[in-house]
């Protein structure tokens, strides 16, 4: 499934065209953007399956949440949510800067976004280390690690994309005319953030 993320390379400004002659454009929708949206749909379904597991453990089996004798650090996770959400804002700012041909803004934006993403991941791992239960302790522990870990893996994929984009930003590949290679990883990053809000709400708040 990671393969879908690899549809990105068709975007971007400076690639040469290698391949078949252009086809008739039968839709106003841009092909790589549509590909990313479809990929996100299938990503949502992966999360959907994990939420199904969550539903069966917590609602159908009626297991105590969180498991007896454990505690979920809502405050830390809340701060982490704020960090990830602000990275969405900076990502949006980066795309805006690209559209305005603001090179300095683009560089600052992508750097901040990636930094916030790494911070999120660091705090998440730190939380795992100190949380005091493991996935093998209980089904609740399993689905806690399952959902947050699945999301963490997506943050990691998103960060890899952001790193690729950052290289190209710093090489000056994007401009107001060519910024698709920046916009599409951005869509993915927004998806990762929105998904976190859902995971955070169901796992930590409810």
């Amino acid at each position, binding site marked *: 499934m990671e393969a879908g993320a690899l549809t990105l390379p068709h975007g971007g400004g400076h690639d040469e065209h290698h391949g078949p002659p252009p086809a008739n454009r039968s839709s106003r929708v841009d*092909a790589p953007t549509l590909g990313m949206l479809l990929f996100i749909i299938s990503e949502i379904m*992966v999360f959907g399956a994990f939420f199904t597991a969550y539903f*069966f453990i917590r609602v159908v089996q009626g297991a105590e949440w969180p498991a007896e004798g454990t505690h979920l650090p809502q405050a830390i996770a809340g701060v982490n949510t704020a960090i990830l959400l602000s990275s969405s804002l900076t990502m949006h700012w980066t795309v805006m800067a690209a559209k305005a041909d603001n090179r300095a803004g683009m560089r600052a934006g992508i750097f901040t976004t990636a930094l916030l993403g790494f911070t999120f991941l660091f705090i998440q791992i730190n939380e795992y280390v100190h949380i005091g239960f493991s996935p093998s302790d209980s*089904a609740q522990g399993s*689905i806690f690690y399952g959902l947050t870990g699945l999301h963490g893996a997506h943050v990691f994929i998103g960060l890899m994309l952001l790193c690729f984009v950052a290289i190209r930003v710093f090489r000056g590949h994007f401009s107001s005319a060519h910024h698709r290679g920046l916009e599409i990883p951005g869509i993915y990053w927004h998806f990762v953030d929105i998904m976190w809000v859902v995971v955070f709400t169901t796992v930590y708040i409810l």
Partner: protein
Amino acid sequence: MSLRAPGFPRAGLGILLAVALAYGLVIGVRALYGWDPVLDGDAVLQVALIAAPFGFFIGFGLFDYWFRWASGAPTVPEEHSSHGARSWKDYFRVNTDHKVIGIQYVVTSFFFLLVGGMFAMLVRAELAQPGMQFVNPNAYNGLFSVHASILIFLFIIPVFAGFANYVLPLMIGAPDMAFPRLNALSYWMLPVAGIMMLASFLAPGGSFSTGWTAYAPLSTEAPIGQVFFTIGVQFAGASSIATALNFLVTIITMRAPGMSFFRMPLLVWANFSTSLLVVIATPFIAASQFFVLLERALGFNFFEVTRGGDVLMYQHVFWFYSHPAVYIMMLPGFGIISEILAVKSRKPIFGYRMMAFSLLAIVVLGFTVWAHHMFVSGMQEWIRVPMMITTAVIAVPTGIKIFSWLATLWKGVLHLDTPMLFALGFVTMFTLGGISGVMLAMIPFTIHVSDTYFIVAHIHYVLFGGSLFTIFAGAYYWFPKMTGRMYDERLGKLHFWTTFVGFNLTFAPMHLIGIEGMPRRVADYAQEFAGWNLFISIASFVVGLSTLVFVYNMVVSWRAGIRAPANPWKALTLEWQVSSPPPIFNFDTIPTVVGGPYEYGVPGAVHGVFKGAEVKTTATPAGAAPVGD
């Protein structure tokens, strides 16, 4: 032999490095946690099964272009990105041409048909007599499990993707798929998944033997051979999702001028619907196998009831994919049959729009029936009746299609050649399979026949009499286009009649012994079923032999058949308007579509025209396919 250029030597190196990485990772992590022993064979195997395919992909050159892009370097046209295949060796390289990939897909899938069919022969050999003959019960369980998994994940699903890969861009007037490199990656994941599943026979404890359904907790406690399925399915599924996404984007953004959605051939419609199903449903089987893997490898407790887990959850998640999956295995076949019946009876397809809408109806309803596989699983009782109703309802759009096909045939000028025979065989056999499906929707009946040979009969009537017949029909129908040669019609007919008769003799009696209570998935059976089982085994060998006729016909015709004209069937759809095989980028000029795809028998009807040619349109389009919109 260069280890720097993409190809098999570098791929081998990639696999070696990946295995080394697996060893390093496992030893490192276990040493860090202070676990003893530091080296755990099962753990290394599981990591290696995930890492080695990526070593192969990277070494083989599937990621070269993307690595250059990601590092900000200027991309270069690789040697293998050139289109077309000049010799057979080009089929063993990364190639981004949809026609090459289509043939790679189809040939690979048929190879796995022979492998999976061979397992079926072994199963029938064991079942020819009561008692144990050739294999022990565990090996028998392995045989039918690998038989089903190979034929579902490595044959039926990818062979349809292969046909569509070849003809779909041609049909909509596109030069290639939307993402040619992703397309190449999708293909190369398949042999990896197939080899992985077959390699499970080498694992200690034997191959995976939990059926293709791999129910937990059976699969979480099975010997290590199980992970070959768990991980192999991930690659087959990823391949499927990537191809589906590619089809959807291609269909939406790359249609020729004038090719509105309601001028698309029904094969395109069928693959559009199938791809929707794949994108939405396939992630669920990925997740179900993630659960199994996490439970096996890292000690998670999704299914451990004593720790608050839910064991039925696996079945819900699995069938939420695998029921739509039976439509993934059927809808593209519907498309193939619609093409063939219209062309071979020289009539417009009856109820074109209803054919398209019924496909979409199946997509939607397909997500509402999953628990009918679980009537005897002990799930909540209130789910049963709603699922019975939706299951009966989903027969309605399928019925619309059957009746539309019959109405298409009505008073047509039938050309009873091999593709048409297989198409007619499909319509009859699939109807029988559909009827036993409606029977199975009825809860009292399904409780009676659950886990008996009635289920085996039903699944083979829809997947063999249904899907496989459409695949054979499609293989003969597009053989001239894909190879540029004609197949041997006499051998084709021989293949059809032996398959059709052998198939019915094999699977029809299974209904009877199923109702009488012979359980499926058991290597031994009661003496009273001995007669029928011997009969079934002999009939199944007829089916096996008939497949050899097919293989012989394909191989010999491909090598030395007479040259095929551009349009041997006088079809209207665009793939037949170019040479056989088509030029390297499909069309010299992009065609313009001016009418419906099935205006057979309408004087002067034209579907697509090429620039420079005179545009002729029909005065009144035939059938229920209004032009325009």
